[in-house]
């Protein structure tokens, strides 16, 4: 099996006047797992898209085995032995595994009539060699996420990839699936395939990497050995010393004012995406809802807010039933809500920061004045919030959509925390947020707890859950697997996220 040495020399990629990558040098030695570590938006994915021929570099050279190459498209990159597994899978859901694997290089007979037998055989071969357990005739949309990812890997291997790029491959996996993937990566490495592993999760990076290259704001900051401490790596990513632990005080739970009973949300296809969930949250306590993405977390929070249909059960806040109330009433009852997709559901992108900060209160005094609004009061409020939450924006009038992820999230948080709250719900409070802002946002959430508000956090990142939670609820396929105290070992949480209840035994009915 041939091995390939891959070099990137002085790669720059500009979008307009903004440099996503600037003068990047990188050498991937044959048969190594080379990790690219960096925050969201640091330019890792852009770099890999350049390498894979999806973007044309503004400057620089790609050298494969000493030969300078230029890729006009992914086809050229594949021909040079480079394969890529994207963060969002590039699989056609309504195609079978074999059709997806064959696409673009389909074996066909006369007249272009497809003949997928060869593809099926190859899939079975690779599947056996690495223990993938993939059926070539299964429809991709019916497969679990972890298996879909293996289909992506097969796709690259069938095309004889010698260098495999994995872009944030663990973002959608349970901890157990992640471990399996890391094993697969080691096996691939043993058979001579080099891997470029893109991640921002320090634990995984340290576990498999041979070399770590840290990227910040489009530039290579430096290399680090896998033995470097997490604090060192994080500081390299952010560019200043960061403390990774929050050191919050113990919770002082009070009266259980938020009570959910038998909450069920039925989806359009008739299944229950939230299935008979009951829990309470006390004043001054953070309940973190953990689980792999897509196990009912979104529907759970949206049902409480009142934007889901086909909801049954009961949700009471200080004795008042929230289900069935219009969203505005729910918010006026003292619920603060940070949606998981802030740019889509939390902000109106083209509106100014100032306007976004009063989206909930625009029709109330002091911001409303008769049928009109009071721009002075809106601007005043914005100036205060920008200072309090350290929102980095050119001006109060800048469009919210132009801010960085972390600053957008601060706008949403600032708005939701500015009302007197009786319940605070935040979904994925720090997804796509830079490490520096994470710390700040976490402190604000804990401060809200300490002010005596029941707080519910939904997060798919176990690190975040461990950081914030006073108690941890785990969801699997819309059911509550269990509620466990903070400090429960990751392994236990990982099993719960796969549906195994903490007392042991599977929870499949």
């Amino acid at each position, binding site marked *: 099996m041939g091995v390939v040495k891959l070099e990137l020399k002085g790669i720059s990629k500009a979008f307009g006047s903004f440099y996503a990558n600037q003068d990047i040098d990188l050498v991937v030695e044959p048969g190594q797992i080379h990790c690219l570590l960096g925050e969201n938006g640091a330019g890792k994915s852009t770099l890999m898209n350049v390498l894979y021929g999806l973007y044309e570099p503004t400057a620089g050279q790609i050298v494969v085995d000493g030969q300078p190459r230029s890729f006009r498209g992914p086809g050229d990159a594949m021909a040079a032995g480079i394969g890529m597994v994207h963060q969002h899978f590039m699989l056609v859901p309504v195609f079978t595994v074999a059709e997806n694997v064959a696409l673009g290089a389909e074996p066909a007979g006369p007249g272009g009539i497809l003949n997928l037998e060869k593809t099926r055989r190859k899939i079975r071969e690779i599947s056996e060699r690495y223990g993938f357990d993939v059926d070539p005739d299964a429809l991709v949309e019916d497969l679990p996420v972890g298996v879909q990812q293996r289909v992506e890997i097969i796709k690259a291997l069938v095309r004889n990839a010698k260098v495999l790029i994995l872009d944030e491959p663990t973002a959608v996996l349970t901890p157990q699936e992640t471990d399996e993937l890391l094993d697969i990566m080691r096996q691939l490495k043993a058979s001579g395939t080099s891997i470029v592993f893109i991640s921002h999760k320090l634990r995984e990076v340290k576990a498999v990497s041979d070399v770590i290259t840290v990227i910040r704001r489009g530039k290579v900051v430096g290399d680090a050995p896998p033995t470097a401490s997490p604090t060192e790596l994080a500081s390299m990513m952010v560019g200043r010393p960061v403390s990774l632990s929050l050191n919050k005080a113990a919770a002082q739970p009070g009266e259980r004012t938020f009570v959910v009973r038998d909450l069920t949300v039925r989806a359009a296809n008739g299944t*229950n995406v939230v299935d008979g969930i009951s829990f309470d949250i006390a004043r001054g306590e953070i309940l973190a809802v953990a689980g792999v993405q897509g196990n009912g977390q979104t529907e759970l929070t949206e049902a409480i807010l009142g934007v889901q249909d086909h909801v049954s059960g*009961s949700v009471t806040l200080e004795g008042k039933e929230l289900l069935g109330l219009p969203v505005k009433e729910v918010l006026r009852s003292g619920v603060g809500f940070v949606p998981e997709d802030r740019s889509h559901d939390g902000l109106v992108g083209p509106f100014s920061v100032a306007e976004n900060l009063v989206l909930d209160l625009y029709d109330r005094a002091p911001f409303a004045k008769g049928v009109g609004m009071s721009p002075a009061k809106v601007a005043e409020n914005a100036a205060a919030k920008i200072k309090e939450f350290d929102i980095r924006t050119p001006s109060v009038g800048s469009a919210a959509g132009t801010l960085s992820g972390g600053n957008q999230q601060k706008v949403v948080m600032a708005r939701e925390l500015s009302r007197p709250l009786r319940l605070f719900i935040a979904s994925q409070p720090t997804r796509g947020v830079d490490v520096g802002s994470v710390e700040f946002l976490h402190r604000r959430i804990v401060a809200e707890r300490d002010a005596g508000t029941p707080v519910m956090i939904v997060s798919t990142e176990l690190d975040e859950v461990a950081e914030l939670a006073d108690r941890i609820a785990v969801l699997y396929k819309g059911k509550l697997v269990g509620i466990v105290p903070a400090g429960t070992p990751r392994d236990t949480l990982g099993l719960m996220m796969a549906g195994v209840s903490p007392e042991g035994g599977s929870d499949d009915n």
Partner: protein
Amino acid sequence: MTTATKPAPGAAGPTTALRPSLKVPVSLGVLSLVALVFFGFLGPGKTAEMKISEQGDAIVLPALQIPGQAGGIVLAILLLAMAAYSIYLWNRGERSPKWLPIAFAVVFVFALLVWIVAGAREPSISLAGLIAGSVTLAVPLVFGSLSGVLCERVGVVNIAIEGQLLGGAFTAALVATVTHNAYIGLLAAAAAGALVSMVLAVFSIKYLVNQIIVGVVLNVLVSGLTGFLFGTVMAPDKELFNTPPRLDILPIPLLSDIPLIGPILFEQSVAGYLMYVAVAVVWVGLFKTRWGLRVRAVGEHPQAADTLGINVNATRFWNVTLGGAIAGIGGAIFTLVTIDSFTKEISGGRGFIALAALIFGRWNPIGAFLASLLFGFAYNLQSILGIIGTPVPSQFMAMLPYLVTIFAVAGLVGRSRPPAASGIPYVKG
């Protein structure tokens, strides 16, 4: 604890078990009761005569004689039985098989036919003529809906089918008249349809203009342009510009003499035979070939196709162009087969019905073909019933095709899934 404060439609039904929808059993039940009351108990006393073969045919079969009321009752009972079977299946938690609604529809339409014919002034129609005429009327619809299938499968919504039909009809008439050759006219129609499609493709793919808007604008544009040219060029000098030769009907010997299906399958113009070929080729092409796999991938998940080295926008451009050419051929049918010259708005909204046929046919060439036949049947029924003089006012009959369209698209097909990326322009990155 109080429960279910939020109104949940269907909450009375079981919520945990996954039951098939009640839509099919209920609609079949209601329709069969309607049939029993109107076609049966209130059925006309006369006997409906349905001729199966024409006088000049090689094999002459006797005509069907069906007494209005008795026939209605028998057919209604058959319908009730089918509805009962569907409810029985639902009760056991099973889905109704696919053939059941289709068989039900066929029997229901037949019962409707008996009811109308037996109530007419002249209670006699030619079944063979009815079906053959339906196919003739369906030909432009089939070409139009195939164009839609090709475009939507690759991710471009083609609202401009109407414009492509109209452009094809106009060009066919003009070119065939000038060259005195219907076949050159047919080719020119394909080119005209492709041209309209290219405009759609360029604006929606390269300039990312909303596809629906481009489509609508194109329809209006083609309608205005052909109307203008018709008024200034064609109408003043009809001999020179608007007397196209017809496409000859080419009956296949022997086979065309088979009663009922002979005239449908084996007594067509070149365009008619082309229709059957086009349906088969598009189906095989889409689902059995390398080209089709790529086309469908582009329509479902363009990013995935792009990362595998498939040129998304080029695939879209050429597919949309090909679709336009097919619709253009459909347009030529109006001026070269059915009517002998071009008139303003000759396509008369058939392009939109073709769009409905494509959705009814679930983005599948064969489905679109069958749906087009159904709509063609509705058109033909309307004109034949006008001739034999039914008690139903002709305005209602004229609504028939559109009524069928609404019911077909809204209710009967259930939830169908369009290609995921249909209507969404592809921008790299």
